[in-house]
């Protein structure tokens, strides 16, 4: 008997709405949810999800470590044993160091509300998410200018007339709906400008590609701004007068940053910059300068992301059709309330509210404590700064391969007394854990409802398609059962997923059965765009788009510091990293189908530079930085800037439990130095300077 289940994917963080065909409790096919027209299909990761349902290399039951860390020696445990063991170890450690000695990290997901409830319930302020590493500075930049986080804005791809992307690889990161919106717009004549030191699939799909010198994206933006505002008619004067705070400061600041100056810094010809400025001006306000994600992560990232938002503002494209928009929620759609949160309960006061990362406090005063500054984790552990950290809950997140400087992170993990991992695979941190609490795979579980804010807000549901194949549990149940054993079960007033759904919906007037037909409930049929004359609700102190940011200036950060020239020794390279369509960060390399598709990474190196180093295509090369060194196969090509070398993120796994990905390729984290944007909070993943030489055989 066949049935169709509408659910949300979780092979990456996009969570596309999908339709899953199930026969006799087996998933036999996955496609896009047909009630969402832009979901024309699914990406390769989603297609490969079936490969994980019966994969014997998954974590199949709770495990407790018996040998040295990372030895792969485990004993199988019952859930009661594993949870009891975790709770009693925590109690012992908390008695000595306090509950603040626990850090919880995760990939933000539908259970995040419950993760935060867990940390409040046990009394630790130390939560951080993957978001901090992926886009911390984008978040900070958005809040400094708009008063919204990056998660609260989006791009109206389908109606745009010109998109400018800086390393943002839309055609390989694949958000299916967004990608189709852009393709549809392009088929109607929209232009795509791609700025990237390396030719990606996105570059190959672009109308115009600029091979920019790595680390200089901010310079091209300053020159674009220069052209737009010095040739007075090219920007949206009325919009800027109405909605921008601090334009005068920008006007005088931008003086030295001419297109000719930018040409010397970026390698992009001045006349091309001028031409681009004219084209985007003609397309305004249906223009998207996209603010993220990945690509071009350097220490000055906060200013780079802010410059992107300034360009949008100058063209009046914030809250415009075909531009950026502020996501609308349930209240905008006329509902009394949105989904009720468990983390809004009142919790006991924490004995110490100082965070391990100083986020929202003295170290990173304007980074977002909702996500933290995860890059500080190894430093905090190793230096016991501001106090000893002893317990890590790594829930579906792998700091070992996700943070820069693998060797330092490994040392920090070794120093911990207890690592608790919740994972479906043997990931890097999972393999070093003391106890593994295996999560049920997304096709096999239901999760809390998702508030899908947007132009047309909706509430979405992940619904189990089949029974769990192994002895696993969903994260919302694991956290509740762990909290119960730690004496804090009262904050988890549910037994089943239906209890959670009913709790979430209790103030909305929506019934859970409303989700059965399509998997989601739309709250409005019409796109909600605010009135551009008087209705833009920016959450900054001034209520405007703050070019001069009160948030930054209040904490002693200049809104317009002088541009620092990018210096580069002639015999070195800048290591830049990125993604491909086959893999999600460090998580999917061992999936049987995705591993077959892209089994290892290679080092892209410019053909002229390679020749001078005696490196030929497919040679093994050694790459070395201040953080570490390793060997990898060279891909010699003219499709990368001479100053850059590139590798895909997430390879070089050393976990013997994940046999397909074991020792395939090289971990970028092994080479990346722990450099940061000190204001925004992002790691500067594309800033490490490296040496490359032919490996000795």
């Amino acid at each position, binding site marked *: 008997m066949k049935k169709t289940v509408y659910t949300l994917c979780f092979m990456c963080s996009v969570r596309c709405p999908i339709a899953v065909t199930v026969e006799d409790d087996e998933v036999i096919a996955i496609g896009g949810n047909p009630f969402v027209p832009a979901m024309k299909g699914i990406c390769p990761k989603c297609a490969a999800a079936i490969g994980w349902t019966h994969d014997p290399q998954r974590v199949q039951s709770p495990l407790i470590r018996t040998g040295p860390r990372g030895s792969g020696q485990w004993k199988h445990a019952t859930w009661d044993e594993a949870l009891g063991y975790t709770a009693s170890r925590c109690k012992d450690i908390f008695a000595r160091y306090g509950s603040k000695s626990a850090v919880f990290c995760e990939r933000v997901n539908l259970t995040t509300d419950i993760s935060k409830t867990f940390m409040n319930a046990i009394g630790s302020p130390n939560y951080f998410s993957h978001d901090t590493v992926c886009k911390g500075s984008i978040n900070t930049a958005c809040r400094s200018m708009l008063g919204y986080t990056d998660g609260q804005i989006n791009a109206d791809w389908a109606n745009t007339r010109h998109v400018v992307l800086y390393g943002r690889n839309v055609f390989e990161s694949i958000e299916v709906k967004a990608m189709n919106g852009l393709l549809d717009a392009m088929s109607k004549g929209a232009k795509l400008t791609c700025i990237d030191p390396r030719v990606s699939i996105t570059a*190959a799909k672009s109308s115009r590609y600029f091979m920019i010198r790595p680390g200089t994206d901010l310079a091209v933006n300053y020159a674009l701004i220069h052209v737009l505002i010095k040739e007075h008619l090219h920007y949206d004067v009325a919009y800027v007068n109405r909605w921008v705070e601090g334009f005068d400061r920008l006007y005088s600041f931008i003086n030295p940053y001419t297109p000719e100056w930018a040409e010397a810094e970026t390698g992009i010809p001045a006349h091309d910059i001028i031409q681009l400025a004219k084209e985007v001006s003609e397309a305004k306000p249906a223009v998207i300068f996209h603010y993220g994600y990945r690509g071009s992560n350097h220490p000055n990232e906060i200013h780079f992301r802010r410059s992107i938002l300034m360009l949008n503002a100058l063209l009046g494209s914030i809250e415009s059709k075909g531009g950026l928009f502020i996501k609308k929620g349930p209240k905008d759609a006329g509902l009394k309330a949105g989904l009720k949160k468990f983390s809004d309960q009142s919790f006991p006061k924490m004995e110490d509210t100082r965070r391990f990362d100083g986020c929202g406090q003295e170290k990173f005063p304007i980074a977002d404590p909702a996500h933290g500054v995860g890059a500080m984790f190894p430093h905090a552990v190793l230096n016991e700064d501001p106090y000893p950290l002893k317990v890590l809950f790594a829930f579906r997140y792998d700091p070992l391969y996700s943070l820069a400087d693998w060797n330092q992170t490994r040392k920090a993990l070794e120093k911990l007394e207890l690592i608790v991992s919740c994972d479906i695979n043997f990931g890097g941190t999972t393999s070093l854990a003391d106890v593994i609490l295996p999560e049920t795979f997304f096709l096999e579980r239901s999760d809390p409802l998702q508030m899908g804010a947007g132009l047309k807000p909706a509430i979405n549901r992940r619904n189990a398609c089949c029974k769990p194949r192994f002895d696993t549990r969903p994260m919302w149940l694991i956290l509740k059962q762990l909290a119960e054993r730690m004496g804090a079960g009262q904050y988890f007033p549910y037994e089943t997923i239906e209890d959670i759904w009913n709790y979430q919906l209790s103030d909305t007037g929506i019934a859970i059965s409303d989700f059965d037909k399509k998997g989601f409930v739309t709250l409005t049929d019409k796109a909600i765009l605010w009135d551009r004359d008087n209705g833009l609700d920016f959450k900054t102190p001034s209520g405007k788009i703050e070019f001069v940011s009160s948030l930054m200036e209040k904490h002693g950060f200049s809104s317009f510091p002088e541009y620092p020239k990018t210096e580069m020794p002639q015999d070195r390279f800048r290591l830049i990293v990125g993604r491909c369509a086959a893999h999600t960060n460090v998580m999917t390399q061992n999936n049987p189908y995705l591993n077959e598709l892209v089994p290892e990474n290679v080092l892209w190196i410019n053909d002229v530079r390679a020749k001078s180093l005696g490196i030929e295509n497919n040679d093994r090369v050694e790459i070395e930085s201040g953080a570490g060194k390793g060997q990898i196969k060279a891909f010699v090509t003219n499709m990368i800037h001479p100053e850059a070398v590139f590798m895909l993120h997430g390879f070089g796994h050393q976990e013997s439990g994940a046999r397909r990905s074991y020792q395939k390729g090289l971990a970028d984290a092994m080479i990346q130095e722990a450099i940061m944007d000190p204001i925004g909070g992002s790691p500067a993943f594309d800033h490490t300077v490296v040496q490359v030489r032919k490996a000795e055989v």
Partner: protein
Amino acid sequence: MGDYLIYTDSQKCVACHACEIACKTKNRVPIGTTLGKIVIMGPKLVNGQPRMASLFVPCFHCEDAWCINACPVDAIRKRSKDGLVHILPDLCVGCKSCVLACPWHIPQWNAAVGKAMKCDLCMDRIDEGLEPACVSVCPTGALQFGEPATLSHQSRETYALNLLGRSQSRYGH
């Protein structure tokens, strides 16, 4: 391709290979073996601008199929209703004649069971009114499945309506 075609819109293809993976999971194709294959040219730089192109290569379901003619045990058949060429696994003796005979070596060797296997355009799905797995998952609609006449109608309509739309705006209607 029997009575059907799979058309690749190179403009829309993003070289993600979801088509191949869906084919493998649907047809239980062993790792290392590919029935429907997406072939990508590029990206490469042409006057500084990167370009790429794609073409999906499933079995062509030839009218006079080399594989059928080569099979010594009559294990490969053509469906009379729509001309799809498929292997009857129970009859296949694993001699690989079909693999050798096909000019594109499209029949594949399934080492796990010691038999040949090939793309049958997911004829069980077609019989249920569905598209082949490869086409059904394509995230951008770059792969289009249908009968040649339907595809032709669709392409000409899209082309002509686009052209008419442009001339209308030019004359200010």
